[in-house]
């Protein structure tokens, strides 16, 4: 495992109290894996991504650990983290594209950045030029100001610069969101190529757009209100989602060829809860059409099928049988916590569920999202 995140908690200090934007998140990313992190805006995706690289002033590391290549990252110590940034961990922050310093040429900016990491520009210049060529930018970009570049070019330049020192982890936060579709594709394919060329070992791609992740990610992790709700290989998340939130996200995506007359889509009513005082129990409860009594307790994030982790009581009921439910009901236990606990569950994949025809497998029909159905479909 290149990256192992264990019960990570990050909060923002505000005048009104702590905003618990990342609230006990555990996951691991393998060498060579591109992990997609999805969810509506405000769910804590950027906070999670940023915390792996840089804790900004108001952010507080409230608990948990992050390991990179087996080594614990000192994420709350900014000075110590300085040694890792760019060399071992790197990030393309949300809006980075528009945040490039407009008064610095790209080349000079790169040199300054490298200098701040104690790396001499000359020593990497050749590699830089090679990579600029590789991503199809003209060498001239180094002598240009950011505003002279189109959105796609800027995004590519940022990507080359942030991975120049071959970090183990790259966090790419909404790198495709402001681009038009053809540039999205270019940037998406570039992410894959960077991984293939071993410029980076692992990439966390953050976006609210699941269809981009279906293209580039190996695994998809869905986040809701500061917690992980589902993690599985990309095809599984897209084809056989178990969490109602993931299902709802997918149901709201128009696919090419779908017209409103044929199949009206439905959004998800409501919006994510405030993380200042997150609700008790399942955080998706207020918007979930399947919510039942059990959901007033916090659902554990557990492996219900091999490689498929979910935090939902309904999924537990449907797949894990009642044993887990009963177990969680025992006084004193808040349900099995963490991925490991899932091994007790009879985690047998349903026969025939293995993606024979991905298109047919999208779970709830859109119609279910318009009504306020409860219970099982």
């Amino acid at each position, binding site marked *: 495992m290149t990256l192992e995140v264990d019960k990570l908690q990050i909060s923002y200090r505000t005048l009104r109290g702590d905003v618990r934007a990342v609230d006990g998140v555990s996951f691991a990313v393998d060498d060579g894996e591109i992990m997609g992190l999805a969810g*509506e*805006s405000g769910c804590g995706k950027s906070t999670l991504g940023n915390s792996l690289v840089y804790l900004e002033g108001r952010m507080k590391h409230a608990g948990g650990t992050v390991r990179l290549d087996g080594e614990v990252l000192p994420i709350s110590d900014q000075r110590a983290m300085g040694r890792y940034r760019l060399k071992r961990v790197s990030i393309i922050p949300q809006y980075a594209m528009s945040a490039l310093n407009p008064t610095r040429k790209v080349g000079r900016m790169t040199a300054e950045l490298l200098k701040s990491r104690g790396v001499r520009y000359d020593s990497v210049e050749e590699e830089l030029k090679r990579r600029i060529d590789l*991503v*199809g*930018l*003209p060498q*001239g970009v180094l002598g240009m100001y950011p505003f*002279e570049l*189109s*959105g*796609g*070019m800027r995004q590519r330049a940022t990507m080359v610069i942030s991975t120049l020192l071959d970090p183990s982890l790259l966090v790419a936060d909404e790198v495709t969101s402001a*681009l*038009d*579709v*053809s*540039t*999205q*594709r*270019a940037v*998406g*394919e*570039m992410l*894959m*190529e960077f991984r*293939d*060329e071993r410029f980076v070992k692992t990439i966390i791609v953050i976006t*609210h*757009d*699941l*269809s*981009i992740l*279906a*293209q580039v990610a190996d695994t998809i992790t869905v986040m809701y209100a500061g917690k992980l709700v589902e993690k599985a290989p990309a095809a599984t998340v*897209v*084809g056989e989602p178990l969490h109602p939130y993931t299902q*709802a*996200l*997918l149901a*709201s*995506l*128009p*696919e*090419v*060829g*779908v*017209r*409103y007359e044929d199949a*009206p*889509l*439905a*959004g*998800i009513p409501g*919006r994510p809860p405030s993380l200042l005082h997150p609700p008790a129990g399942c955080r998706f409860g207020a918007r979930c059409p399947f919510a039942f009594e059990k959901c007033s307790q916090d659902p554990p994030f557990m492996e219900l099928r091999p490689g498929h982790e979910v935090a939902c009581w309904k999924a537990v009921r449907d797949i894990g049988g009642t044993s887990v439910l009963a177990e969680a009901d025992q006084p004193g236990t808040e349900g099995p916590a963490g991925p490991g606990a899932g091994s007790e569950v009879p985690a047998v994949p349903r026969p025939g569920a293995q993606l024979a025809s*991905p*298109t047919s497998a*999208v779970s709830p029909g859109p119609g279910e999202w318009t009504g306020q159905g409860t219970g099982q479909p």
Partner: protein
Amino acid sequence: MSLLELDKVSKVYKTGTFGGELKPALREVSFNIDKGEVISLIGQSGSGKSTLGKIILHLVPPTSGTVRFEGTDISAIGKAGLRDYYRRVQGVFQDPFSSYNPLYKADRVFDMVKSVYFPGVRGTDWQAKVEAALESVTLNPGDVLNKFPHQLSGGQQQRLLIARALLLDVRLLVADEIISMLDASTRVDVLNLLVDLKRRGLGILFITHDLSLGNYISDQTVILRQGVVVEMGETPKVLGNPQHTYTKSLLAAVPQLHKKWGELGAGATVIPAGEVRAGSSNGKIAHDEVGRYSKSPLHPLRQGRGGSGGPLSSVTKTAGGRPSLMELEDAPWQRRGPKAKKSPSAVLSAYPAPPLQECEAGHFVATES
């Protein structure tokens, strides 16, 4: 007579210091919008979509060509006429945050309408009118009134702006990328609202760069590339049976849930080399941005995740004489030297829009050079 008629609308921007450079953002764009019709205007960024929207909204004057609304040329209307025009033609823009003045409460957008168009209406009547408009965009007045913009979600903000337009007697709504900043989950509600408005007889110009959104909602589709219409017609025909390579490459780039980029048909991604060389910059970009990154032997598509090799390898071969991606440098009118044109009209006549041909009933394609 259509609701709105665009007749050879062109726009040349002056850029550079002292307006020394001329940039044709639109060239001879003509199409009509009818009552109860959604037209999606699709193109990459920089293709001139917003410029056209602003011309229709009388925020930017066209360099040449005419815009007729209900038969009247809008360039001729005076101040009072403009006020009247805005009663019937309204717009909603891309960035909900930027549409609200951050210093004021969000419902100020209603107050602005009241002070100009309904100065005499009594408070309670107005309140009722606003609430009715909010209901019709499925917003709960209590949720959105008396709040600052940042206290509302993006979807609420955009619906509030649509409600604002509904206070007036709108017939035509220009919706400029109004959902591209929203989460998929809220996007759909706004889309469905537009469908609803269309059913009530509004004409809607739906500007987007995302073909799946355009396809979902529109009756007619206009594909714009570098300010020129390359393909247009009934949506199912244009997007179901695309003829122009540019349309095809746009379609191939749409990220889909169950089909990898690489798995699309061969013709979809490859733009002939001739096109790349002779054509204009966006063609190159489309070609490049689509094909470039797939050449690595390690590429997942080649590792059995999708097809192997496939359509993209043919692009790879052209990598030797890789064209520059510099959009600006390559546009024909950007070249310096003897070709530089002095006046906007000279620029326009030097780079005429290619003619459109009807390839099937209700489906027009520009000839490709």
